């Protein structure tokens, strides 16, 4: 297993499968059981270092760490030195002095977790919990976990990812992970919301959502922020949702068992209608539950053993 989880692209097929299988066991162990706490990470300290507000992701990591009996320290941008402009480096040095074993970091700057992991400021394992418009590997893992639970192995499965790919760390991580798992990914977005060089990514690209949905096993809708409108990425919310939103008509273009995913938080009525979000094939709520299992798996695999990587 890798020492830091910075990019979904760092996971080999074996690593990714190990995480998903481990998450499966975490789910079996904790689902419906009276006792929800495992002693595995007793005495280890996990720091949630959130330079950017995200109650959902932080809570998910916190729950995961606590279920494994780790000590959890939350550093959030609000009410701490982080909001007073303390540098990433100083914060890292503080965490090191506190004896953090794992640092879960969310940052608005792409690559900030790389700096933490590679600049020699700390010895702790670093888990990227979302960095700028770069990556969000545990989100991709929980998406894959959720899809795998319903669809079986993902090799050969057709997954459509729709929306603001340009600014989406979820899309980047999903494309990399799903490619490793052998799924066929198609990105659908207006050309303005696709990054330059996307044609070199391990996936297909389409501007036509109706077309892409036929035969899909799952569709993942990305959040589109209405601020993008003022920056002329698209003319209006109405035009966006007409061309790229998921409504019941579009859902019916997919096979009846196809899944609907959304990393949240949703803009109901913008990229997805309430009807679809609440439909029987929507696994959006389940994604949240699965997030805890996947993060337990990641924390277990990265923190339970020795810090060496010599053995598989």
């Amino acid at each position: 297993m890798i020492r830091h989880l910075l990019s979904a692209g760092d996971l080999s097929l074996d690593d990714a499968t190990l995480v998903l299988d481990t998450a499966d066991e975490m789910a079996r162990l904790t689902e419906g059981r009276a006792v929800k706490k495992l002693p595995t990470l007793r005495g280890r300290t996990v720091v949630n270092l959130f330079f950017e507000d995200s109650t959902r992701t932080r809570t998910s990591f916190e729950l995961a760490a606590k279920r494994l009996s780790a000590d959890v320290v939350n550093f959030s941008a609000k009410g701490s030195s982080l909001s007073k402009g303390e540098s990433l480096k100083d914060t890292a040095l503080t965490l090191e002095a506190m004896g953090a074993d794992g640092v879960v970091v969310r940052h608005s700057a792409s690559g900030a977790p790389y700096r933490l992991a590679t600049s020699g400021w700390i010895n702790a394992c670093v888990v990227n919990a979302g960095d700028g418009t770069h990556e969000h590997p545990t989100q991709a893992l929980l998406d894959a976990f959720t899809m795998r639970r319903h669809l079986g192995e993902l090799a050969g499965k057709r997954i459509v990812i729709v929306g603001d790919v340009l600014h989406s760390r979820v899309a980047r991580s999903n494309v990399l992970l799903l490619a490793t798992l052998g799924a066929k990914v198609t990105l659908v977005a207006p050309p303005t919301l696709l990054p330059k060089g996307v044609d070199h990514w391990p996936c297909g690209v389409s501007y036509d959502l109706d077309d892409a949905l036929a035969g899909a096993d799952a569709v993942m809708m990305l959040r589109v922020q209405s601020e993008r409108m003022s920056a002329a990425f698209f003319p209006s919310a109405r035009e966006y949702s007409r061309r790229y939103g998921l409504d019941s008509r579009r859902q019916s273009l997919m096979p009846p068992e196809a899944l609907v995913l959304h990393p949240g938080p949703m803009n109901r009525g913008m990229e997805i209608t309430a009807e679809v979000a609440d439909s029987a094939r929507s696994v959006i709520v389940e994604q949240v539950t699965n997030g805890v299992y996947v993060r337990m798996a990641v924390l277990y695999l990265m923190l339970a053993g020795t810090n060496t990587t010599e053995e598989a």
Partner: protein
Amino acid sequence: MSRDLTGAREVLDGDDVARALTRIAHEVVERNKGATDLVLLGIPKRGVPLAHRLAQRISAVEGIEVPVGALDVTMYRDDLRLRPARALEHTEIPPGGVDDRIVVLVDDVLFSGRTIRAALTALEDIGRPRAVRLVVLVDRGHRQLPIRADHVGKNIPTSLAESVKVRLTESDGHDGVLLDKPAREQREPAETAASEVQP
């Protein structure tokens, strides 16, 4: 007794294993005065098929279905930090749970006792059995904790440098127990992790 190609000595062959399990099945029933309230939990990997075989034998004798499951103890081990994190094995608790049952833990080799210590802790998180008993196919000695088995297939005195390898049809194609000579330090890591605990 024979030697396999690797130079390891076979201390139990397939028939020996079958006989030992049959005997243990009877012992368990006798001790429990029947099969009522029994739950068999195998400790992965090789404890699980052994638990299933025992359950079959007990059912055959008593004519009732014996719940059987698996209890992975990886996350309860006290040696987690001594090596890289390991993949988890399946834990499968039978639908009736373990509360107020007689839980029989089944493992292939009893060595330091630390696996069983972990299993007892894991069991605590699952429920409160009326009693817990322990079945092992092989007891090789060298206990580091005050733990003993209730039913043993065979006691095999060993040196610390030796290793005991249990082969089962379900995972290895045939049944047998091998005692590996200390000469070579080479070990299959997976085997080591699965069937014994290094002291």
